[in-house]
């Protein structure tokens, strides 16, 4: 262990009182309002699904585990949503809401109670989402995309080892319904798209958007999608509605295409390093079609 590592480790052993004092010093010291850092927090919703039995291989040093070690599946799972509450989780998607033109126009982070009161999203959280979730996860927020009063899309972020999620999803849905997955993100997002008449079109899990190769798609009814092979530059041009720039210095652009042709709504999502907005439809088409996972 070198000096820096030793010192870094040692700082994790400092007394509790020093840590809590530093946390609480925010805004209280020297008569000035402090800002912890510039990381913006926005309202989101927290939906918590607690695995019935999921044990962690712990050490006396909490959190000091690799992703691979931090979760150990005991084999018994259940999914219930007991709590949704406002949170400060900065869901990236709502930081740049669509402002004009086509596509969804409202991004919501409702509570469970609010969800239940939405007539056009009947029983979404208690019924729809758990039905399609791989079993046994902590579910830490839900985003909804609304187009007017119409529900378009719901995403929920899960907390678990990425490989655990994928493995269980494959068990549940069959590996032939998944595309290639790479990466080592420890949480993934899980989303459901459905038609405006309420029919489920697509369910997907999406990991880190680093390389644009990490989306897995479970197609409930592929025939109702614009199939990958049907995608054309023209469709992209007509349907490209938004380009979300959420951290260009680190991750490039997350680009989302909503293909809305009236009878169906399909959401393709991928990320690029660089300025996706500047790409032409042909270039975007080339990028999308170069992703092997999209072809499955």
């Amino acid at each position, binding site marked *: 262990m070198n000096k820096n590592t030793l010192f870094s480790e040692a700082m994790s052993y400092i007394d509790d009182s020093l840590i809590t004092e530093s946390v609480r010093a925010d805004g209280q010291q020297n008569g000035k309002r402090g800002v912890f850092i510039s990381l913006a927090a926005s309202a989101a919703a927290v939906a918590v699904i607690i695995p019935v039995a999921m044990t962690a291989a712990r050490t006396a040093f909490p*959190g000091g585990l690799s992703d691979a070690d931090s979760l150990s599946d005991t084999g018994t799972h259940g999914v219930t949503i007991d709590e949704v509450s406002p949170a400060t989780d900065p869901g990236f998607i709502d930081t740049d809401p669509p402002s004009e033109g086509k596509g969804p126009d409202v991004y919501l982070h409702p509570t469970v109670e609010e969800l239940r009161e939405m007539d056009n999203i009947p029983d979404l959280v208690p019924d729809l989402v758990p039905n399609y979730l791989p079993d046994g996860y902590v579910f830490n927020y839900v985003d909804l995309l609304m187009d007017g009063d119409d529900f378009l899309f719901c995403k929920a972020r899960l907390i678990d080892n990425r490989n655990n999620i994928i493995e269980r999803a494959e068990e549940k849905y069959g590996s032939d319904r998944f595309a290639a997955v790479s990466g080592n993100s420890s949480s993934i997002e899980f989303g459901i798209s459905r038609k405006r008449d309420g029919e489920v079109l697509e369910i997907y899990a999406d990991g880190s958007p680093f390389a644009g190769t990490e989306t897995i798609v479970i197609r409930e009814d592929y025939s109702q999608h614009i199939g990958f092979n049907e995608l054309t530059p023209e469709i992209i041009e007509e349907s490209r509605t938004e380009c979300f720039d959420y951290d260009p210095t680190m991750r490039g652009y997350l680009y989302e295409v909503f293909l809305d042709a009236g009878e169906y709504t399909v959401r393709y999502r991928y990320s690029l390093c660089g300025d996706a907005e500047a790409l032409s439809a042909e270039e975007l088409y080339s990028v999308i079609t170069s992703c092997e996972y999209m072809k499955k």
Partner: protein
Amino acid sequence: MDDRTVLRMLNERDESVLGEIRKTHGRGCISLANNYLNDRRDAEEVFSDALLTVWNSIPPDSPGSFTAYLYRTVRNIALARYRDMHRQKREGDLTAVALDDAEGFIPGGVDPVESLTAAELGSVISAYLKSLPETDRNVFVCRYFHNMQLNDIKKKLGLGLRKIRNSLTRSREGLREKLKKEGYYYE
């Protein structure tokens, strides 16, 4: 929500506590992770992992301070993730960025761990920091526990940069003297 209530809810397996923790500590914990990872989404993931760790570890763990336990968990996960990410790149330890100056006051030798464990050093550092004025103490912890940049410390504590630098210099020098006096430091 105060620590005692959080711990009670965790012990009662009340799932709503996770939302409460997120409300109370989400921003601070994500900021802490972001200080190490410089990536908001990774930082969010670290916080999510920390929530799961906390849920699974309390009980049986019964920390004296839940806030410290949570922040320590977030820090450990963020550090582990950073090291995983950079191991292949061989870009060096993150702490080399923030803790270059540790070279000057941490015990040397071929293998310092032989003479001083991290826990022991943590204990020495704690004792030393408790002897400092509150401001110096917080500057040190913000810098070396939270891995905050000086400008962020300035915003958080409302101090000038010069004062922060002077405070860190004094604290490091003082720690080195303490380590020397207690027989840990050798060059």
